[in-house]
């Protein structure tokens, strides 16, 4: 018998049994268990006994869980009924609650979808982590320029010399091809030039054709399903002939490939081996190391060290004779990880045309999503705390009837979850409605179906769960801890101060976020307006650009013919003044009286006669290129900044040299913004050219007619080329597209945040004034005026507003200033923005307080103070 003590069942099993047992006291469960346990142990050994014990415990657990779930479900029914009744009873508050949360959740979801889309870019490649692109840094003038362009032989050479590079393929897209099949012609077709390794690197599945061989032959072409459907309809395109480009190279279709997904930075309608039709692009030898216009992608082994490749590639360049030694010395190539291409690219000239995203903007939107979400949740919590004051009696009764604290927590939590789920349904609906609008603004193609991905679903569920927990936590924890005795006997006229401190905190934080958002969006809007209104030093309205690679053969004839039309004001030729931020920097510049240590980089534009007239530029000194002076073809025009930088007293007539051209400075042109306003105006000179596209200034009237005329003239002189035109203002717009999109989105989301916040404030103040109805009645009886009472309630809020402003205005200023730093030409954040922000928030808060207070104050004290 003395050994009995040692024969207890495992402690953990005992613990679980005790916890689970509904009638632990009534039946002697542990004792019975132990008795059997000992029996088994004595007869069959300890192992069997333990096994039996655990098996029984496990079997009991399932039954226990079933019981609990069943019980809870019954209770949940009751909670559901109660919360729906509560919702029905306070219609306006329920509306504010659900609407606020739905809008907030919808905003968050939309931004999440967008962010998810951005992060999903290029991820579908199975080699995603081991892919690299070769980019090249140049020193040009005084600045570094990064390009994606490399010569064709580099890939094969890298593969040969360094075993860690397993595959390499050129991929470069051009989109100017004329493609003909059986008389069906398409212009501006987008073709990707590549090499057979393409299919080893990337995961674009072929529908038909062999990935190993389909690009081997120089005269083959692989088309996407879309292209196949366009040219061949239902016919099988395999083996058919495609006439590619103006020269009509006959290419044989050797494969059909799935259309590249939207979230791929590699886009194409057809794949063509680098060797075929290359003449159209470069006219140079593909084996040349100097023909560097190609984008090169590499697949490397896991053990590759990308950093070491800078030197390795440079060494390769050195060993292969590049004649231009100066060029050879200045060029540095390195490996850019594939995953950085979409959002973290530092490349200035990208061979791919895809719309890159700056990770900065993604982070901005993530923070906005966070802010909107927090404001919406806090709003919900505020309303919940306010409303909980009315439900104290219900809590008391529940407690008296035997509810435990746990039951009450579960009740209030499930109530908040019910609300959150309702709002969530609405939010999904809103997302569905507004996704097209977001796509419109952001220029993306985000699909609602993205929500189907499991990790999105999980994060969405998490967001919902957090919202529910977050917003239900306060009332659940606070109300459930109240003592029923104190709930019934207290008779205070003004209601109790339930959760006042927490509410104050929540309101302050909401104020804070709203003010920051409002402030920043005001700064954004002002800056963008500033850019739109800024005098660029030239005008671009009604200037039509006609694109032509190379040059036009009979420029003078075309020009004269065009000018015959009444609505054509002026025609010129040359590089347009809408440079990207990396200009056409020039070196090898020299002039009369150049100081030996002069180091500034110059930009240059090649232009023709009437350039100044077409773009409305003003000459400060001298004259512009003119037909009356034939020697002008080798002369130069400088801008003011250049003259100042060169420190020339009397520039006209001075000798100026650029590369091999030597000429005189014939004029000084007033500074104009030839790059975006992000950059300061740089020294610039204009040289004469006979190449590049046309710029035609037309009258604003009858533009459609005029453009038809342009097309007719074009057809006459260039029957082979498709007529392509664009308005110059559109190009200028595109220059700021990132900023514009940010401005638009921030504007909308700020507006929504303000709506959510003020809706919440409206509800909250409504509750507070209702709670204080009796107090207000008494004050009125004692002679208080409406303004007295409004001031009294508003005083509480003005304090919170002031505290929030003290923190948020400087924060807003900091963020705004940081963003403005992107621009060389920018607005000052004036005191007015502070004032407007503050006054706006102040005025709205006051209006809400005023409205809600007056509603209560107008009630007859005789009614409000009646005591049943």
């Amino acid at each position, binding site marked *: 018998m003395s050994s009995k*003590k040692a024969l207890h069942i495992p402690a953990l099993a005992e613990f679980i049994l005790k916890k689970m047992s509904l009638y632990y006291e009534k039946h*002697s469960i542990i*004792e*019975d268990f132990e008795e059997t346990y000992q029996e088994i142990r004595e007869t069959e050994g300890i192992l069997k006994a333990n096994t039996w014990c655990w098996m029984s415990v496990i079997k009991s657990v399932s039954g226990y869980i079933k019981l609990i779930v069943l019980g809870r479900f019954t209770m949940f029914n009751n909670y559901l009924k109660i919360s729906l009744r509560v919702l029905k009873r306070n219609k306006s508050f329920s509306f504010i609650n659900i609407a606020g949360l739905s809008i907030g959740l919808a905003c968050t979801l939309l931004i999440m979808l967008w962010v998810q889309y951005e992060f999903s870019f290029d991820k579908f490649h199975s080699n995603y982590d081991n892919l690299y692109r070769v980019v090249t840094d140049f020193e040009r003038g005084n600045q570094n320029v990064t390009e994606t362009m490399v010569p064709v032989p580099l890939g094969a050479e890298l593969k040969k010399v360094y075993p860690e590079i397993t595959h390499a393929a050129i991929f470069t897209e051009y989109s100017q091809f004329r493609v003909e099949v059986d008389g069906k012609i398409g212009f501006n077709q987008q073709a990707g030039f590549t090499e057979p390794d393409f299919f080893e690197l990337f995961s674009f599945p072929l529908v038909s054709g062999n990935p190993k061989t389909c690009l081997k032959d120089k005269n083959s072409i692989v088309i996407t399903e879309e292209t196949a459907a366009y040219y061949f309809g239902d016919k099988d395109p395999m083996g058919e002939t495609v006439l590619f480009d103006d020269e009509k190279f006959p290419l044989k279709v050797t494969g059909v490939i799935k259309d590249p997904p939207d979230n791929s930075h590699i886009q194409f309608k057809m794949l063509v081996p680098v060797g075929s039709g290359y003449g159209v692009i470069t006219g140079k030898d593909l084996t040349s190391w100097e023909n560097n216009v190609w984008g090169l992608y590499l697949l490397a082994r896991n053990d590759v060290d990308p950093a070491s490749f800078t030197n390795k590639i440079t060494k390769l360049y050195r060993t292969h004779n590049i004649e231009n030694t100066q060029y050879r010395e200045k060029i540095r190539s390195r490996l850019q990880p594939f995953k950085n291409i979409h959002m973290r690219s530092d490349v200035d000239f990208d061979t791919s045309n895809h719309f890159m995203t700056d990770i900065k903007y993604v982070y901005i939107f993530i923070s906005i999503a966070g802010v909107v979400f927090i404001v919406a949740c806090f709003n919900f919590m505020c309303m919940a705390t306010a409303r909980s004051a009315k439900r104290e009696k219900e809590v008391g009764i529940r407690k008296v009837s035997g509810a435990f604290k746990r039951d009450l927590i579960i009740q209030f939590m499930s109530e908040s979850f019910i609300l959150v789920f309702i709002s969530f349904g609405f939010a999904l609906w809103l997302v569905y409605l507004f996704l097209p609008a977001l796509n419109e603004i952001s220029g993306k193609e985000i699909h609602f179906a993205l929500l189907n991905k499991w990790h999105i679903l999980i994060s969405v569920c998490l967001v919902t769960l957090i919202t529910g927990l977050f917003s239900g936590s306060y009332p659940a924890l606070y109300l459930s801890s109240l003592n029923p005795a104190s709930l019934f006997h207290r008779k205070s006229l003004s209601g109790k101060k339930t959760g006042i401190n927490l509410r104050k905190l929540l309101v302050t934080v909401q104020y804070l976020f709203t003010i920051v958002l409002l402030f920043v969006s005001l700064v954004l809007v002002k800056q963008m307006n500033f850019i739109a209104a800024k005098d660029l030093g030239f005008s671009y309205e009604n200037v039509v650009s006609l694109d032509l690679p190379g040059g036009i053969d009979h420029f003078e004839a075309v020009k004269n013919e065009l000018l015959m039309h009444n609505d054509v004001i002026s025609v010129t030729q040359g590089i347009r003044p809408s440079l990207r931020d990396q200009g056409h920097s020039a070196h090898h510049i020299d002039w009369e009286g150049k100081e030996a240590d002069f180091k500034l980089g110059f930009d240059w534009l090649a232009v023709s006669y009437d350039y100044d007239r077409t773009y409305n530029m003003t000459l400060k000194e001298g004259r512009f290129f003119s037909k009356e002076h034939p020697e002008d073809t080798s002369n130069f025009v400088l801008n003011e900044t250049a003259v100042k930088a060169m420190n020339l007293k009397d520039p006209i007539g001075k000798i100026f040299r650029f590369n091999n051209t030597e000429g005189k400075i014939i004029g000084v042109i007033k500074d104009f913004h030839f790059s975006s306003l992000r950059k300061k105006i740089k020294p610039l000179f204009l040289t004469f050219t006979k190449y590049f596209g046309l710029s035609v200034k037309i009258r604003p009237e009858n533009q459609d007619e005029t453009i038809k005329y342009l097309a007719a003239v074009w057809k006459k002189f260039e029957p082979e080329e498709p007529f392509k035109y664009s308005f110059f203002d559109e190009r200028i717009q595109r220059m700021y597209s990132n900023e514009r999109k940010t401005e638009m989105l921030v504007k909308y989301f700020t507006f929504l945040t303000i709506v959510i916040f003020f809706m919440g404030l409206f509800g909250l103040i409504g509750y507070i004034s209702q709670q204080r109805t009796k107090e207000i009645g008494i004050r009125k009886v004692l002679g208080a005026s409406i303004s007295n009472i409004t001031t009294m309630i508003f005083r509480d809020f003005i304090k919170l507003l002031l505290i929030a402003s003290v923190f948020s205005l400087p924060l807003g200023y900091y963020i705004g200033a940081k963003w403005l730093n992107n621009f060389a030409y920018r607005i000052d954040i004036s005191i007015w923005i502070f004032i407007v922000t503050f006054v706006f928030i102040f005025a709205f808060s006051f209006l809400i307080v005023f409205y809600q207070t007056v509603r209560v104050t107008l009630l007859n004290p005789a009614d409000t103070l009646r005591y049943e």
Partner: protein
Amino acid sequence: MGLLTLREDIILSALVLLSGSSGGAPIRNKIIELTGKEIVYGTLYNMMEYLMRKGYVTTHKSEPVPVQGGRSKTIYSITKAGRAALRETMALHEKIRGRLKDMEFEV
């Protein structure tokens, strides 16, 4: 008075076989002996709970087990109503079995 289910029948029978009253563990052993099948304590207690509500079984606490730290156990006893219900069920079984025998349906 309702009829017993097979499970109730078995438990009550086991109690009768254990001379009318017993602790949980012997009852379980008896049931296993009778049916040859394992029964989990949870099921046993649930059935006991049910039988108690019907008034077929009562419980009382035994004296503490005479060892150090020994605790008292719950003893289940069959009531008069329980015995009556068992008898009634058995009678019904007999009757049905008699009819089955007529059809030469036997074990």
